[in-house]
């Protein structure tokens, strides 16, 4: 069988280099690479029912490949990749967002080769994070994501791009270091004598609960800043506001998911007992993020900043679902992250288009844009409604599962996220009332609806929002077709 994961990595690597060198034709190269990427991911999906379960108590990963990389005495670093249901969902998200971003950014005029190359490089890093099953390989990809994003914000960004890029880089890098310490401690303390996921997974339960709890906390901090969790979230609004649209889409759609994925794969699955000990802390942080993100969104004037804070709210629900410590919770978290990746990508694209069309993203300054830009308004409506959890759109199955899992695990505490749903609905509806409806305000005479490529990029995401909203089973069946690790039998 073809080692598809390695094939994808090679595709993206070669594609990125080719894009950097392609000059004016970079967008075509990038689109071709994205199409191949999507096709390869589709092939992976086609194989999903035949996945291995546990082998001797250690989870089996599909399409696994392991090649010795650095072997120095006790230091055994391998190039190990593999997917299970959870990572496959994230890979799919990566492929979708890459295609959508490339199409949406078709009109980029400033150094297109570098722009598209960096977009591809970001996706390459994210893909690597989602498939790496070796601690050092994982960390390599993890850090590799920061660099292209730093340049995307720092060169193509808004007026305060330098500040935002640096803040983003320093903040997440500090967290990465804490995370690396946790990961290394995990590998060495557990006696796994290897950086391999399966070895760590098998060895970690022997650790004492207190050690597990501390390891979990260090990993949680590292991954949590990427989530981001309140109060370590202030890099996010600045980065989003300053980033170019494509950068925002990848930032919200993929980079935040790295935190969630990392927490599931390297902390929750490996250290379920550690999770059990620190759950109250996670719940507190999750409730704080849910409430804070939603309430602060209500006060925002900048459309992008509003969506950024709503991301904090949504990722808070993800954290809540993860912290529940049940298979249902993990399923809900993965679904939520997929949904949020698609929907926030869509919303940031609409925010970018609003900015291109009307020269501003200030919600009170713009009004009644629907007659001028009906297509863009429709996209904003779909995105907002999906984000506030309307059924038949992708947000609903995810939120429903998460809330059901919360009810099952926490009882009446579920009233906090449920109540916040009303606030979430209110800031989206209020934004729509002010920006889309009412008499026209701040609409330039020459304004016209979005260009075809922006419409196509957003249209793709709208279509997927509806498709997966009506048929969430397409995702759920993939996730549950391989064993959900960490809580077998719950």
């Amino acid at each position: 069988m073809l080692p598809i994961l390695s094939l994808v990595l090679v595709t993206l690597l070669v594609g990125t280099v080719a894009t950097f060198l392609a000059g004016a034709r970079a967008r075509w190269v990038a689109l071709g690479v994205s199409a191949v990427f999507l096709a390869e991911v589709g092939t992976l999906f086609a194989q999903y029912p035949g996945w291995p379960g546990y082998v001797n108590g250690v989870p089996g990963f599909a399409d696994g490949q392991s090649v010795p990389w650095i072997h120095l005495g006790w230091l055994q670093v391998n190039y190990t990749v593999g997917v299970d249901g959870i990572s496959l969902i994230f890979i799919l998200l990566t492929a979708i967002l890459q295609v959508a971003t490339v199409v949406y950014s078709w009109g980029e005029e400033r150094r297109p080769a570098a722009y598209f190359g960096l977009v591809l490089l970001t996706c390459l890093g994210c893909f690597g994070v989602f498939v790496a099953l070796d601690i050092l390989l994982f960390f390599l990809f993890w850090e590799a994501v920061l660099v292209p994003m730093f340049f995307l914000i720092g060169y193509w960004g808004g007026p305060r791009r330098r500040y935002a890029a640096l803040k983003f880089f320093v903040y997440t890098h500090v967290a990465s270091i804490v995370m690396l310490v946790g990961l290394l401690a995990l590998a060495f303390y557990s006696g796994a004598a290897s950086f391999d996921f399966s070895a760590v997974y098998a060895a970690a339960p022997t650790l004492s609960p207190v050690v597990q709890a501390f390891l979990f906390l260090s990993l949680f901090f590292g991954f949590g800043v990427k989530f981001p969790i309140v109060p370590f979230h202030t890099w996010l609004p600045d980065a989003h506001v300053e980033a170019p649209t494509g950068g925002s889409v990848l930032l919200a759609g993929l980079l935040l998911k790295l935190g969630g994925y990392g927490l599931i794969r390297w902390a929750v699955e490996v250290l379920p007992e550690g999770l059990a000990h620190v759950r109250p802390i996670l719940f507190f942080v999750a409730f704080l993020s849910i409430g804070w993100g939603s309430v602060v969104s209500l006060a925002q004037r900048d459309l992008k900043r509003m969506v950024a804070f709503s991301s904090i709210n949504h990722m808070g629900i993800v954290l809540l679902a993860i912290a529940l410590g049940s298979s249902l919770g993990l399923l809900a978290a993965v679904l939520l992250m997929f949904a949020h990746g698609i929907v926030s990508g869509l919303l940031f694209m609409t925010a970018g288009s609003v900015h291109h069309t009307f020269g501003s993203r200030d919600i009170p300054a713009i009004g009644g844009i629907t007659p001028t830009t009906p297509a863009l308004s429709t996209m904003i409506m779909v995105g907002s409604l999906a984000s506030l959890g309307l059924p038949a759109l992708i947000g609903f199955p995810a939120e429903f599962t998460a809330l059901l899992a919360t009810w099952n695990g926490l009882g009446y505490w579920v009233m906090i996220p449920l109540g916040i749903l009303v606030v979430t609905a209110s800031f989206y509806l209020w934004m729509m009332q002010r920006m889309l409806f009412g008499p026209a305000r701040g609409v330039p005479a020459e304004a016209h609806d979005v260009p075809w490529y922006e419409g196509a990029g957003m249209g793709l995401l709208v279509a997927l929002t509806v498709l997966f909203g009506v048929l969430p089973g397409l995702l759920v069946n993939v996730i549950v077709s391989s064993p959900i690790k960490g809580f077998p039998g719950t």
Partner: protein
Amino acid sequence: MGALNGLFGYAFLVPLLMVASFAIVGLAGGRLKRLEWGGWVAVAFSGAAMVVGVLISVGEMLSPSSYTNVQYTWLHLPPAPGTFPNGFELVVGTLVDPISALLLLVVTVVGFLVMLYSIGYMHHDRGLPRYYAELSLFLAAMTGLVLANNLLEFFVFWELVGVCSYFLIGFYYEKPSAASAAKEAFLVTRVGDVMFLLGIFLYFSTYAQAGPAGGWAANGFVFVHGAQPFVPVGTGNGTTLTIAGILILGGAAGKSAQFPLHVWLPDAMEGPTTVSALIHAATMVAAGVYLLAVTSLFLGFTATDSLVIVAIGGFTAFFAATMAVVHPDIKRVIAYSTISQLGYMVLAIGAGFAMVGLYHLFTHAFFKALLFLAAGSVIHAVGTQNLFQMGGLKKRMRLTAAAFAIGGLALAGIPPFAGFWSKDDILAAVFSQLGSHPAYWPFFLLAFAGVFLTAYYIFRAWFLAFSGPTTRDPTLPEAHEGPWVMQVPLVVLSGFAVVAGLFVFLPGFPGLLLNGAGVAGIPPHYGTTELLLSGASVGLAAAGIGLAWFLWGNGRVFVLPESSPAQPVCRLLLARYHFKEAYDWVGLRAVYTVARAADFVDQYVIDGTVHGFERAFAAISDRLRRIQSGIVSDYAAYVVAGLLLVFVLLLLVAPWIVARLGGS
């Protein structure tokens, strides 16, 4: 018998037809100028849906109490400790049973008629493809809701009809008031929806392992037809079930605009009148009542729940009617009347007569849609909704005046019009419970008093609009009847408003209400008590009509004197008891202020701390920089000092730590 039962498995065709209509009109409506921008497409599809709907309900009449469930797995979810140890499935499907057939009949018939009426009524508006697409989507969602076979699917369609309502209320989105009303409707019902969702969770987890064949969870949480299928697990669940029932009531109150979530419905009149007739009178707002009926049939309410439901229903029936008494806007008068009538239905369900409530829902859908369409005909003709500008319209609009009068008589409960039978049935049913539930007394009396107000306000509206010599505002355009597409629905609905109440006495029709064996109150039984009660309520209604004629008949306009002690009451009623102001205050002032404060904290306290770290590090590094003198000897000294430090650590500190830890 049962020749049409084969159709039951294809009930999904009804929503599917409307989805097809939505897709066609939504995508190609802009190019269908000759088909009224897709309007005729929507009419054709809703006509086809009506045919299927009517056939299904006729089939259900022919074979009473049969039911057909078709379902597919929507989500297969993994286990969760405690409640769902084996994982569970969520399904989607269609359940054709007597009450869903009844609702299907109402929704498809009224839907088709309103769609037809829209061709004439909406002709001069812009954005017609959007209108017909959204209305088609609404009908798809509404029929889906009616056919839903489990609570989750119910909730899905419940939200979808909500969002269609949002878009249709905001159809004239350039008007700030319409945009605001749409948002208000969505948010207020959202509060109810959140309660509904929590109620679903409570029921799911309570009954997951109870019920037939391995638990309700194993059954996909599908409504199990027949008697209450579930045995509460253990004794501690009484409280949980009570809370669940209250939460379901909360959801129903949001959708059916019951007190205290009633504020959105009058404002929803910003939408086109056709939308008000279909969504905000006949179908969507009745979904809350349907939810309560379904819940009471399949899951049951506890005694506490019943009392709360009776209280909310009875109180709303009276409370909403008082506001209708003074309002100058023809549509809002009817809107308050809708809230009030929904209150009667809720009252009946709370008292344990779900079928009687649905009976009133059935008749109400027709006469209330009739009233709205007649009002729409008036608005279409004179271009205003203000009753005090109208007058004397009956000369030029005989059909409309007659239709409005028929609707009014049905609403007021004058025999033999439709409303009389069902409303009296409700009063009789609740009355029969008063002996065993004395706590119902005040709410029964409120509902009874509501009969008088109902008759008064609807005929006040009729007299103001239609009687008298001429219009009060001479600038109004010359009134005229609408085109035939508007007249046909008025005639058909008038027919229903006259006879729909009598259907229940026909053989077969009660099959849509009788749930298997006979249900108390269907068809109404007329003993001495009931006849006395009927006599009293008809007398009250007649008195209400008489008062309306006395004050407003023949073009009279009754002005309350400034010195009248009733003035403050009147102002309070016109201000709608200040509920809207209170909610606006909570939303705009309280919550928004909190949000602004939180935003301030976010920017200056949390991010300020981050910047504090930044500055601290900058200051420290500025100090440390001075060590870099550039002189080689200094660096050599640092090297030596560092070496000494390593020695100290290795030789002195490390052994001490090892000794403290007990190592060797």
